[in-house]
């Protein structure tokens, strides 16, 4: 009756000498995989966003969290005048990135998205632009 309990204690005791696996999170940051689907980013080429406002990402989005409005620049090129992603509705499925035909949208390793106000979760084009 008491023997199995002592054997169990032996197992627990042997773990005392093993290396701890806990990641001390706020001090130690985890290494995030390259394929990780974190905060979105609008890729930049020749000093402007690559996005051509084709509306594929809002179409394919299962959560309907992307707002795009097209505009025309000085060279009569179509560009995204408004590009917003509501992170409170986003389910981080990555379909928008998969759907982008010009490789203008990506997902970063950024996963700490906590904020104080609801409005702070709506990421405008300026906040989504790739940091260089």
């Amino acid at each position, binding site marked *: 009756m*008491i023997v199995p309990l002592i054997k*169990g204690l032996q197992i627990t005791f042997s773990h005392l000498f093993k290396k701890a696996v806990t990641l001390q999170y706020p001090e130690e940051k985890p290494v995030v995989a390259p394929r990780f689907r974190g905060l979105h980013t609008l890729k930049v080429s020749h000093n402007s966003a690559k996005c051509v406002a084709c509306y594929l990402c809002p179409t394919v989005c299962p959560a309907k969290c992307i707002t795009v409005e097209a505009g025309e620049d000085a060279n009569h090129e179509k560009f995204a005048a408004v590009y917003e992603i509501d992170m409170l509705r986003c389910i981080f499925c990555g379909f928008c990135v998969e759907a982008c035909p010009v490789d203008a949208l990506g997902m970063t390793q950024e996963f700490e998205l906590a904020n104080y106000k609801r409005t702070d979760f709506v990421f405008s084009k300026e906040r989504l632009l790739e940091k260089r």
Partner: protein
Amino acid sequence: MNKETMTVNMGPQHPSTHGVLRLVIELDGEIIEKITPHIGYLHRGVEKLSEHRTYHQTIPLTDRLDYLAPMSNNLGYVLAVEKLMGIEIPERAETVRVILTELTRLKSHLVWIACHALDIGAMTVFIYAFREREKVMQLYEKISGARMTSNYFRVGGLSADVYDGFEKDVQEIVDTFPGHLDTYEGLLTKNTIWLQRTVGNGVISAEDAIDAGITGPALRGSGVDWDLRRDNPYSGYEKYSFKVPVGENCDTFDRYKVRLIEMREAISIITQAMKALKPGPVLADEPQVCYPPKENVYNSIEGLIHHFKIASEGFPAPEGEVYQGIEAPKGELGYYIVSDGGNKPYRMRVRPPSFVNLSAIEKMAKGAMIADLVAVIGTLDIVLGEIDR
């Protein structure tokens, strides 16, 4: 003498109800007379939402049904749509799917053993099991980009090929896992307290289990030899040889043993599948359904048009109905899809194993002490995400 029963409300925030399950229990002293489960606290309307999403867009919704086994949910859904469309998928994709769903079975059973033991009072197992689960979660993150909401399978194959070093990571899990299972068994299988809490607890006979529609390890624990992977193979399971464990005494301890053997068998299936893994395409050659490769999209107008067509409208499915059941970690997970010929399901019904298994809770716990109810909830291994959908 006048007898009076007492009504006790358990949940929806009770720590041992595995989510937001609410049970209204009628007690005679400490003896359970009646249990009424109240469900729906986690209802998100996935079935209704899917009627307004294309076939492609429903895949990330299925991640969130049984959130402890997302890849199994994805597999059931994509297999159902593939059956409806009549698509054959490449062998490599099929094998990778088997490896990942068996890893998912480990992941789900680890949460089961962790929470089941924690509910009964063995906290150590909980900590150890979550340590091992983290390995599978990291593999999930590397392969799909998310730890839980994988969204990795696609209609026609996989969203991307496996990453470099996938074989090594799987091999590491396969090599270390039997040792970890021995650790759990050392802590529980012969432990007097564990035996006293589980042997003879939650007994349900084979006939009652079949009548209630129970599936999965809970059914096999009652001695019914039924496993969809063997009896109705899908995704190439007929190629692998594995044992289907069954219990004898129909109690919580037998279901515990069945699940532990199942984890060992899952390891054996993963080993066989890793041997069978050959290089090749991971997406079917079905231009009507699948996205074209990205280099075609960037470099050719035909590819771009093709990409726009799939992304904007999805694909139409032929008119008809289809049912596909798979052996998910918790039991038979079925997707029943009715198509009216459009690019969205006319109706999708999910047959979640937990929902049906929960219906037997009264039969299993009636006449037991209220403290044993916690063990019965644990042994049923329910997840409210798929009960409420």
